[in-house]
């Protein structure tokens, strides 16, 4: 993450660069909101018409251990191809992937780890999204290539592995969390993953980015070297008043907003941490199945809403989620099930 963790893409910069605001991978304006989520962004496997079976035709590349397509000579990064001879991916990242307003090199959507392969790697073409709480109502979302392995997050931060290449970020339907748009691992589909919200830091005086606390940032450092090296800087501003956040607002780093998001984010984060943070609950496979704790929680919530038929507090009620039988505790308030915990019984 860059020193200015609050670095959102400024409106002024976007005004001067309408192609980035509108359709960065083509430089053409568009009114199609889906583009901002990146669902229409081409990925290399689609472009090249490849399927998984064709992986057999590849041989191991000596660079980062990735397979090389024998026909094209390009390295396969699972979500897209890297043209080793050109030092470029054969298809662009999604809008603003890897972009930092202060680093023009990052605006090149075809570049590989900002033309610095000695220090930065893109292990598999997939992404790790780091959220940093920067205030009661704001957080900054960055994305780096590769898994979250080795990505260290500090106070007020969270890291979420996305099983694909990030194409955009928007506020979740609850207005308290973020939805990450991504193109799938195999490049054949796209989807969204809810990543909750960055936690409220325990020590706001020291947390990176909190209230633009440069001293705190210097104390704790960036989220990790990996993230520092290749970041997307997409600011999510849960601002003061207003309606729902839409994708355009988020990608523009703009100020659409919902009130009270700071506490809401903390509430969600606290619940996710409690339910999925204790290995004794045995929910690891469920998290893996759904691609993250937020998505797993949503699935549990949905199943509980359908299957729990009590009124008031309930304990040890069986629900089936993702093929697993788990037990949930919670309460029903005005017909809405609210889960306090979930676990796989011994």
């Amino acid at each position: 993450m860059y020193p200015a963790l609050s670095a959102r893409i400024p409106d002024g910069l976007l005004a001067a660069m309408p192609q980035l605001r509108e359709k960065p991978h083509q430089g053409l304006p568009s009114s199609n909101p889906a583009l901002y989520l990146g669902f229409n962004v081409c990925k290399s496997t689609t472009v090249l018409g490849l399927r998984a079976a064709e992986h057999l035709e590849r041989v191991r590349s000596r660079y980062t251990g990735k397979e090389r397509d024998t026909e094209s000579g390009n390295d396969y990064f699972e979500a897209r191809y890297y043209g080793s001879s050109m030092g470029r991916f054969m298809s662009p990242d999604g809008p603003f992937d890897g972009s930092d307003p202060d680093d023009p090199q990052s605006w090149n959507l075809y570049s590989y780890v900002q033309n610095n392969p000695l220090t930065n790697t893109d292990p598999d073409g997939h992404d790790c999204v780091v959220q940093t709480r920067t205030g009661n109502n704001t957080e900054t979302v960055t994305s780096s290539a590769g898994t979250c392995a080795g990505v260290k997050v500090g106070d007020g931060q969270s890291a979420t592995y996305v099983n694909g290449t990030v194409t955009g970020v928007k506020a979740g339907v609850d207005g308290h969390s973020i939805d990450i748009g991504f193109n799938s691992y195999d490049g054949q589909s796209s989807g969204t993953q809810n990543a909750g919200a960055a936690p409220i830091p325990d020590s706001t005086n020291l947390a990176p980015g909190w209230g633009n606390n440069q001293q705190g940032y210097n104390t704790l450092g960036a989220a990790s070297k990996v993230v520092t090296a290749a970041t997307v800087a997409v600011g999510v501003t849960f601002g003061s008043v207003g309606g729902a956040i839409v994708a355009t607002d988020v990608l523009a780093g703009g100020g659409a907003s919902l009130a009270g998001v700071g506490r809401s984010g903390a509430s969600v984060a606290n619940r996710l941490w409690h339910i999925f943070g204790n290995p004794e609950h045995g929910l690891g496979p469920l998290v893996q199945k759904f691609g993250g704790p937020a998505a797993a929680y949503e699935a549990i919530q949905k199943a509980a809403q359908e299957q729990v038929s009590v009124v008031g507090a309930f304990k040890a009620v069986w629900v089936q989620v993702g093929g697993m039988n788990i037990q949930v505790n919670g309460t029903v308030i005005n017909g809405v099930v609210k889960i306090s915990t979930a676990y796989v019984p011994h």
Partner: protein
Amino acid sequence: MSVQQVTNVEDVRRLPKGTSSVKGIDLEDPAVLALCDVRSLRELDLSGCDLVTDRSVVKLLDLTALEVLDLTLCVLITDESVEALARLPKIRKLLLHGCYDITDVGLAALARSSSLEELILWSCEKITDQGVASLAKLATLRHLELPGFAPITDAGLLALSSNASNLEVLELDHLSAISDEGILSLAKLKSLVRLVVQGSRQISEAAISSLRVALPSCDVVFSK
């Protein structure tokens, strides 16, 4: 006692004089702060109000007539709130189900209550034997539901059996570290009328049978 539902500050301000029971729906701090002026309140249900924080909950101390407080899934409150609530002079029943950040510190404060009879701690997984030992000293405590998956061991149960002589209901759910020794020690609690032991693998049928013999008037519910 009729229950008034409120959803915001305006609702609170419209409450009839003398209102004694309120259920808050998705309330936030400002509405809870406004409730602090309803001094006639005896029962307050804030379950599911997951945005309320210590900032407003500590002010509930002004509700000196309050007897029942439900803070289920008020996930942002901490020991700071519990320390304040422990000083409510008439509080009888406190539901902290899903208040994840409650620790032994809060329970130590609750142990100083002079009126608390019923305490629900589901999902408060930060509580340890130390917290249980604090509660054991609470002479008024009659009903206790401990959190599953908390690091509570036989030591906690031994503390209860030695001190919580007025305990009538005890629920132990998914406490993997408790064993027959702890369960058998509960035979000292002659006031027990209901004991629930679920999801604790180390507990044997033999120990439960012995306990049933020792406490013939106690309904012992057991399942692994």
